[in-house]
Every structure is written in structure tokens, then in C-alpha cells.
């Protein structure tokens, strides 16, 4: 069995601390005793989550078969496992589902619930090292910085989209696209109608001849 990376052990310790502090998470872990979930992060890593004695263990890929396997891109899995979305599914740009579940879907869903309930309170974790007041200040600063970055990224995205759609005209905007597609649909319907009329006219000409 390969070595389990130290960072994974730290994540596990963090999650177990959260499970221990929440009655709902403890109950969720109890329901998952002696089960395992394989998480395949496509192209990045595969890991095994196991619950035993109400304690979560995260390991490098294990030899035995897991009760359920969940695979997907890193972001799709993070969203799914932390409760960002309620179930697997959705589709990526190529039309494939962004996450896939094999095996016992009920167990996979319970693990999703457990991960969502065990989401660590980072302010609380930080306060263990720095004390309450600095932890509060630092987390406020982090939240503000994160919010600023998120807003900045959104504004930049909107500005670039607007430039490409309105100034350089390399892309069409959604309204124009929808209007174009509507026009295509209407043209197709008209063509179909004309085709039927022509066919009827043809039959009439053949009848009179």
C-alpha cells in the first residue's frame, strides 16, 4: 500500500475534529460505520474514505473494493462533497456528467452528507493557534480579500465578455444568439411548410395530367 500523504492526514484530522464537535455529523458517521468510498479526482488523485468507530479515515488508494466510487473533476467533486450541489449529475462542456457515481449510490450520498456536515469552521481552527481575537480579525480580512477577488474576477469576466461581444464582435451575446436560433427555427418551419405545399402541388399536377 502506498504512503498516505501527510497533508491528507491533516485534512482527516480536521474533518474528524468537526465530526466530533457536531452531533449530526457524529450520527452521520455512525450510519456509515464499516463502509468505504473511493474518490477518483480525474487526472489528479484517487483516495479512499473509510468510516470506522465513527471516525473518518482518508487513505491513499487501497487494494480492496469500495462500497461506492465517485469520480469527477476537482471542482465538481468539491462542490458535490461540500454540499454545493445536492446530487451528482450536471454536465460539462462536452456534455458528459460532471460527476459519476458507481456502486451503492445511497452510501455515496451519505458520505456527501457527512462531508457537508464536517465542513471545518476555519475561524475556530485558526483561533486554536492565534487566539480568538486575532482569528476573528484574520478571518474577516480573509473573507474581505476573497470577496474582493471574487468580485474582481466577475467584473473582469463581464468586461472581457462585453468587449468581445460589443466592441470586437468576435462573439455574439446571448440575446443575439437566441434571436438567431429563433430565426433558424422559424426558417426551418417555413421550409418544412413549403416542402409540404410543393409536395401537395406536385400530387395535384400529377392528378390533373
Amino acid at each position, binding site marked *: 500500500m502506498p504512503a498516505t500523504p501527510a497533508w491528507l*492526514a491533516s485534512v482527516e484530522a480536521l474533518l474528524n475534529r468537526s465530526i466530533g464537535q457536531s452531533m449530526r455529523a457524529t450520527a452521520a458517521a455512525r450510519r456509515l460505520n464499516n463502509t468505504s468510498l473511493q474518490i477518483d479526482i480525474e487526472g489528479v488523485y484517487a483516495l479512499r474514505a473509510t468510516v*470506522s468507530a*465513527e471516525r473518518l479515515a482518508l487513505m491513499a488508494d487501497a487494494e480492496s473494493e469500495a462500497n461506492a466510487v465517485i469520480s469527477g473533476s476537482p471542482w465538481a467533486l468539491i462542490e458535490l462533497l461540500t454540499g454545493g450541489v445536492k446530487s451528482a449529475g450536471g454536465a460539462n462542456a462536452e456534455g458528459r456528467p460532471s460527476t459519476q457515481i458507481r456502486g451503492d449510490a445511497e452510501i455515496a450520498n451519505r458520505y456527501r452528507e457527512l462531508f457537508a456536515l464536517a465542513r471545518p469552521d476555519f475561524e475556530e481552527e485558526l483561533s486554536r493557534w492565534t487566539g480568538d481575537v486575532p482569528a476573528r480579525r484574520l478571518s474577516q480580512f480573509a473573507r474581505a480579500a476573497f470577496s474582493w477577488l471574487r468580485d474582481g474576477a466577475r467584473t473582469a469576466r463581464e468586461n472581457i465578455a462585453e468587449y468581445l461581444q460589443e466592441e470586437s464582435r468576435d462573439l455574439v451575446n446571448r440575446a443575439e444568439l437566441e434571436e438567431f436560433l429563433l430565426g433558424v427555427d422559424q426558417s426551418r418551419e417555413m421550409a418544412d411548410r413549403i416542402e409540404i405545399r410543393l409536395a401537395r402541388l406536385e400530387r395535384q399536377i400529377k392528378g390533373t395530367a
Partner: protein
Amino acid sequence: MTDSDRKVDFGFEKVAPKEKAARVRAVFTSVAGRYDLMNDLMSFGAHRLWKRFALSLTGLRPGQSALDVAGGTGDLTLGLLRQVGREGRVILSDINPSMLEVGRDRLLDSGFAGNVECIVADAERLPFADNSFDCVTIGFGLRNVTDKAAALASMYRVLKSGGQLLVLEFSTPVAPGLKPLYDAYSFGVLPRLGRLVAHDAASYRYLAESIRTHPNQEALLEMLRSAGFGLARYHNLAGGIVALHRGYKI
């Protein structure tokens, strides 16, 4: 082969089990006074990070109990005491009274008394009732134990159901290119450092040799499984120079 014919490793030498116990005791009696200083010098302080990492994985909560086997000067014991709080209980055990004396003084100097006991005990025959502790740790001690399988079985016995064993120990470097550097350091620099600081080069030569004869990561993992530990796994630290093995009594 009779028991009296059995030989065990003492560094690169093969000696009788009883002789190993006596010689290990002599090594640690010799270095007890300078043990902490030497640890800092030899590892450039990294042993503190390795121990902190081990402590971060105990999962102990206030009020629980822990045993630090071969705990020597009490580095891990101090961390365990902070985790279990005043209502919890920690036992520091070591086979060597000189090391334990240093550990006991250090705990008292750090303000811990009442919920901690220091006990001279052989890791192979721990003098505690079955199912006594929520967590058992052994930091840089297992390679000095004569019968490692017996020690693991003994630690398994004293753990409560669901309790965890953490074994922090030197291991086999796995990072590319690290092994020759590590060998040069441990056989060239360590004995000299031992002679300069602890006035005992032989003990530190034994330290380097005993690391080479200690089971590697996979072998120790198998030993944990054989002793009955579930969810057994290991984490390499500093490119495998040190490994933390852990397993649960399930």
C-alpha cells in the same frame, strides 16, 4: 533454534536478546542528560515538527487517556497532556529510569502534575489493564525494542476499542537522491556530533546503525496489521527519513 540461541540486531551487530536490552539501556543512560539538545542538533529542530504532526493526529479530546511508550524525556507526553486537559490522564513510560527522570523533571517544570504518571515499564510487557487508553504513542522508541511484535501486541492490548496507535520512527528514505546524503550524514556527522556534545560517539553510531536495521515502511505496516491493527497506514516525513505509522484497535 532454542531461545538462548536467538540473536537480535543491536545496530549492525547480532547479540542475544538480553544483551540488547542491557546495551540499549546503557546507550540511553549515557545520553539522557544531553538527549534533547542532541535531538535538536541532529535533526536541525525538525523532530519538533515531526512530533507536532504526530500529535495533530491523535484525535484526543479533553478527559481522555493516553500512554506514551518509550517516552523518554517527555516531548510527546507534554503535547498529549495539553490535549486531554486537566480531566484527562497521561502515562509516560520508559524502560530507562535515567531518561524517565529527565522527563519527569521536565513535566513538573512545565507545570504538569496530578494527571500524569511516570512509570518504568518494558514496552513488550506493559503493566496496564486491557482496554485502558484512547491513544498510545511511541516516538523514536520502537527500533530499540528487542521484540517489536511483542511490543505492538502489548500496545494493542492496552488500547481501548476504537483507540489509535501512533508510531513515529526513523525509516527508509524514499525521495530520489536522498539516501547517499543521508548515509553520509548519519555515519559521518552524527558520531562526531555525539562525541563533541554528548561525549559518546559509540551511542550515536548505534543510533545510525539501528535505523538501518529497523523494518522499512511497508514491513512495519505489515507488523501493525499482524498485531491486529485496522486501518493501518503510514505517512512519510522528510522524504521518508521518518515515517509515522498508525492503526486502530477495531
